[in-house]
């Protein structure tokens, strides 16, 4: 019953929080309308959503989010230094990261995190060979970068979604 009424609890919660933020959670009426929207919108948009894997470890997910936020600050500092430094000494490279995960939704999250963090932008996710194509701004040692991404981001994500 609960499952049928709220097919996507995470999506509903996100919609409700977004509505509360947009209206500044000003009044009870706004919150009620937000709750109604959070219940109705997942039904209306049901056909467009991919089958997301279940969030198996919410606590690990929160810790991981905090670490990603910190990494974003560090990565920005690194990019900023390289941008103002001598441009000719950069060694940009295309890097291929072989993935162990096998879920398109989780791969999308991983590629978004990779785009925002360590001096890399994801270019393509190859879903036949499960390889993440990246472009790195400054990667003198591509293998080390691959190891960092697998250990620091892919392993926790696989743990969080248990896939």
């Amino acid at each position: 019953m609960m499952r049928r009424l709220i097919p996507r609890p995470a999506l509903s919660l996100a919609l409700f929080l977004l509505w509360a933020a947009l209206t500044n959670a000003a009044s009870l009426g706004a919150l009620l309308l937000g709750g109604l929207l959070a219940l109705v919108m997942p039904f209306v948009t049901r056909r467009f959503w991919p089958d997301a894997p279940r969030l198996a470890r919410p606590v690990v997910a929160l810790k991981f989010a905090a670490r990603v936020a910190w990494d974003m600050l560090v990565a920005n500092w690194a990019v900023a230094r390289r941008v103002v430094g001598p441009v000719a000494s950069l060694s940009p490279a295309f890097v291929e990261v072989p993935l162990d995960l096998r879920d398109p939704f989780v791969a999308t999250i991983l590629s978004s995190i990779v785009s925002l963090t360590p001096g890399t932008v994801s270019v393509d996710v190859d879903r036949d060979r499960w390889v993440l194509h990246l472009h790195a701004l400054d990667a003198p040692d591509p293998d080390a970068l691959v190891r960092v991404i697998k250990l620091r981001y892919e392993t926790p994500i696989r743990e969080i979604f248990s896939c």
Partner: protein
Amino acid sequence: MNLVIEFVVASLILLGAAFALLGSVGLARLPDFFTRLHGPTKATTLGVGAMVLASAVYFTATQQGFSLHEIAVMVFLFITAPVSAHLLAKAALHRSAPECSEEIDDAGK
């Protein structure tokens, strides 16, 4: 508004503006498209995110109640930045080597 909050807002604005400027410096200065992509996706996003956060702190301090709607803009920016970067990179690959990126496209299906 007390001095501590004013200081926080001012430093967030300065930090954000500096990062946004660095992102644009990267856009103007780096040698090829794929390296240019790095500046705007990371530095500009974080910079504008910091300024939006400054606005949230400021309005929370000056008006009654919380000012949360700036957080929505920030979340939106952080979600969309990697997506546009990804699409731009794909488009650039497609243009620089059509045969090669066709392959990637087909494999991606």
